[in-house]
């Protein structure tokens, strides 16, 4: 895989800007997620209004891929209902598993589509899906 396709400007921006990396004042739900084998370790925080994700953020450390994927996910799910967020998680994971390849169907993932090619890098797949698995666990608990 070409590094240009992996470390795109978008990914680098998200991994470095840290605009979603902070504590929420009054999170309803805090969920830790980790990849023990590589050390990615994030904590996702959600603040909901009824069924709707009003605000989301994360803390923790990890590689550029895991950090960017988490940050983009937060952009995407903010304002969505929990159900919609779960659906997006399913889409994202299916994209990585190459179960969904149709670009149109993936459009709802917006910027997160950049991770499509990561399925060609088995060693990095876990980094990209970490935040989405964490989200699923968080929502499952609600």
């Amino acid at each position, binding site marked *: 895989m070409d*590094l240009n396709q*992996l470390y795109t400007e978008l990914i*680098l*921006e998200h991994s470095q800007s840290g605009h979603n990396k902070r504590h929420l004042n009054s999170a309803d739900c805090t969920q830790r997620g980790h990849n023990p084998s590589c*050390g990615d370790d994030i904590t996702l925080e959600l603040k909901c209004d009824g069924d709707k994700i009003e605000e989301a953020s994360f803390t923790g450390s990890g*590689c550029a*891929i895991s950090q960017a994927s988490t940050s983009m996910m937060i952009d995407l799910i903010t304002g969505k209902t929990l159900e919609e967020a779960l659906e997006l998680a399913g889409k994202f994971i299916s994209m990585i598993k190459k179960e969904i390849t149709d670009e149109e169907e993936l459009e709802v993932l917006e910027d997160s589509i950049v991770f499509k090619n990561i399925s060609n890098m088995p060693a990095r797949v876990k980094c990209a899906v970490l935040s989405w698995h964490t989200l699923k666990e968080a929502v499952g608990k609600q």
Partner: protein
Amino acid sequence: MKKFDVKQIRKDFPTLSQKVNGKPLVYLDNAATTHKPNFVLDAMIDYYEKHNANPNRGAHYLGVSATELYENAREKVREFINAKSNKEIIFTRNATESLNLIAYSYGMKYVEEDDEIVVCISEHHSNIVPWQKIANLKKAKLKFIYLNEDYRLNMDEVYTKITDKTKIVGIAQMSNVLGTVYPVKQIVEYAHSKGAITIIDGAQSAPHIKIDVIDINTDFLVFSGHKMLGPMGIGVLYGKEELLEEMPPFLMGGDMIEYVEEQNTTFAELPHRFEAGTPNVEGAVGLTAAIDYIEEIGLDNINTHGHKLTSYALEKLMAIPYVKIYGPKDLDNRGAVISFSVEGCHPHDVSTIVDTYGVALRAGHHCAQPLMKYLNAPATSRISFYIYNTKSEIDIFIDSLKNVRKWLGYGS
């Protein structure tokens, strides 16, 4: 000392001549596993083509031949580490199984409530987790020897941690993360003076340093074939005969028995008592060839070559301002392993990026999470050298490393 010709040596390793991502492979992950020379591969194939049989049990020609090769391998290993007797050489699957054997057999028998087991904070998980289990089951205490600022060990710390209550002291002769080579002979001596027995994990040192178990006087030594040019699936446990003699068997089944009755079994003599089931003769034959190959080159030469490369790489790395090295910065008691981090860049990104330049290095916790926590580093990158690595490979690695921050958006 024989002449050491790395170009000639490289020709013996078919794996090294391949391209990775269109670039020549630069394999710097030797602490994880080494590649195999044709000499070893040929020996394994020759075994299957001419001698293959289940040893120990057969009076037929191939059975006798396989038994001979297997026992010759034991003799080769005995000689390699200067053990007194072949009875002291047990073949296992890898260093991890060797350590588990000691824990399950020696540990379960001898460790008692309030006893102490002392290991170093830089141990591989394989020399920590089995002891957590024993400590837990026996209500004993697992204690850690910590390191100095310079990643070396202070004997005062050893004198503090090893006490009259200490039953077992386990330490890797060379850390697979820091490259530090510990003064195992002194540690063994002190442990013995306190009545403890000692386990040296030679997984990293055996490929590089001449080990003499009589000189070190350790009670146990373990190592793996695959980290020293041998095949996967074969490891060694050395134990002093008088200790092994008193230890209960670990794995049970064929070949390790004397008489089996419905309700009772008596066990075979050493070393067979600790080798259950069909042995890995292929692995033993491959390990024999690997030791032959290493001895032909000479451990002195190997050690010198490792030092040369390590010194060169340390110098280059230290010249890069955003690189931090985890481990001793001079060659004193130091092996051919260098862990480092690149400021602002996660080790996994480093690994992925240099991989596109053909460079294979390792990223992560290197099976030493307690050490990583102690160092306050969630993960590091690691390079490690062996006989076939060259300075120009280090140059390629350094060049690729200099590109890492650019790819990750830090300008140059």
